[in-house]
């Protein structure tokens, strides 16, 4: 648990936060495991992003200007 919350006051079952509905608590508990989280951008994704979001626009701007 990275910070103090009600989970540290009550037993850390992952389902005992009185501020959160049980289903939401269960989902959070599940997603706190990094294996259950979606991966971020890969190197290939960054390549696509910079290519389509920066390089292609730059080329288009040059093409359209001349």
């Amino acid at each position: 648990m990275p910070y103090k919350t009600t989970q540290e006051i009550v037993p850390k079952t992952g389902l005992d936060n009185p501020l959160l509905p049980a289903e939401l608590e269960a989902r959070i508990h599940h997603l706190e495991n990094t294996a259950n989280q979606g991966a971020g951008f890969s190197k290939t994704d960054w390549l696509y992003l910079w290519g389509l979001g920066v390089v292609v626009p730059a080329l288009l701007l040059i093409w359209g200007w001349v």
Partner: protein
Amino acid sequence: MTNVIENAALNKVPSADRSAWPLMPSERNWSQRQLFVVLLVSAAATWCYIIGEYVGYYLNLKPGFASMTAGSLVGMFLVTVAVVPMATRFGIDSVATTKAQFGSRGWMFAGALQYISIIGWNSLLLIFFGKSVAQLLITLGLLPEGGAGFVVPLMAALACAVVYGTLLKGATGVERISNTLFFFIVGVSVWMVVMLLTKESGAIAAATPEYASDKLWDYTTGMEIGIVSLLSWWPYIGAMVRVVPNASKATLPSMLGMGLPVPLISVVGLAAFLAVGTSDPSTWLVSLGGPLFGSIALLFVIAANLGTAVIGVYASAVGLRHLPVMNSLPWKWVLSLSIMPVAAVGIAIPDAFFNNFGTFLAFIGVMFAPLCGIQIADYFFLRRQSISIRALYDPGSEAPYYFWRGFNPAAFLAMAIGFGVYVYLLDPVAYTSRAPYQYLTASLPTCLVGGLSYVLFTLLVNKPLGLGGYENGYEK
């Protein structure tokens, strides 16, 4: 035991896509293709023609297409980098991603921005829908000229009912209508471009843009229109990309499915405006090809607007779910709250809204540039991609994203500064500018200054005071 209770809790509500709660990996099962289709249908709407028309005031076809497309891709790049990593990591929507920056209560600002923006755009789309149906009936001889008065509100109400019925199934409804509309929208769009370019190429080449003055200023404005138009996708994108399992599955659909169709369809509006002085396909296709082509174009407008409205209402309904009072309401009630303002506008004041709301939306739209800057700066530079899913949903005063009574002044200050920078550089209504707008656009400096202001305030105030959870370094 915990696992048993967890599984029971997770199985209890089968429709997680109708809530604002994070989606489990098993619920994030859309493929790249599915997301691409939904994003494309979402992007293809009547506003594309208006975007093209705005560019046509300043630029001819080639520079207009180049600058508008470049701006669109840059705008989509900013929205994608700001929202997609957080949304796909935890299966959350755009509004939820702002809690780490705006605070456990301050997110309501982003929620309100989303709600107002989507309601505004949806109202416009459904009024267009009503007008298009009326025009179709006139074209087919089923309605006399000038008899559209009662048809527009009636059709707007009917469209709201169709949207409501479709969305009772949550994201599944979104996907179904998208699959139905996809080929029709793509096919008719291509056909319209080919027809316009083959029949009106001479007029397009000879056209002189009405407000053309300085070459650099006009070119920059073409790019600015592209950027700010695509930044308006911020409210929509989170609710869509959260259904794919990871960021990789969303990258190309986002850039190519949402970023590219807007300029490609906008070029129809640009070319039409240059050739015949109006971007409205229902007008120029009738004059070019007769009632048959006009009818086909009107069907396209009707279908495209309906698809976008479905996705917009879904995104705003998911955003509303973040309010505690909305969380326990049945989905149909939350849907009603998303669609009723749209229906009210479409039925009661379609003409007044149609003529005046553009100004308000122009100001709403410029808010997304600093918002993207803040989110990118926070997630990638300050938090180093380290976000706590628990903190995003923890409303307690001890929670890291509680900041100052649930609000993070850094985000609000950065938004205000960013907004000021934009309005200084470019009046979004009158399109009058100050230097160095002609070299930088207005959205890009706004995004940068918004992000930098946020970083500065965080490093000087929040971090030394231990606010915002920056010292913890959550697990990635």
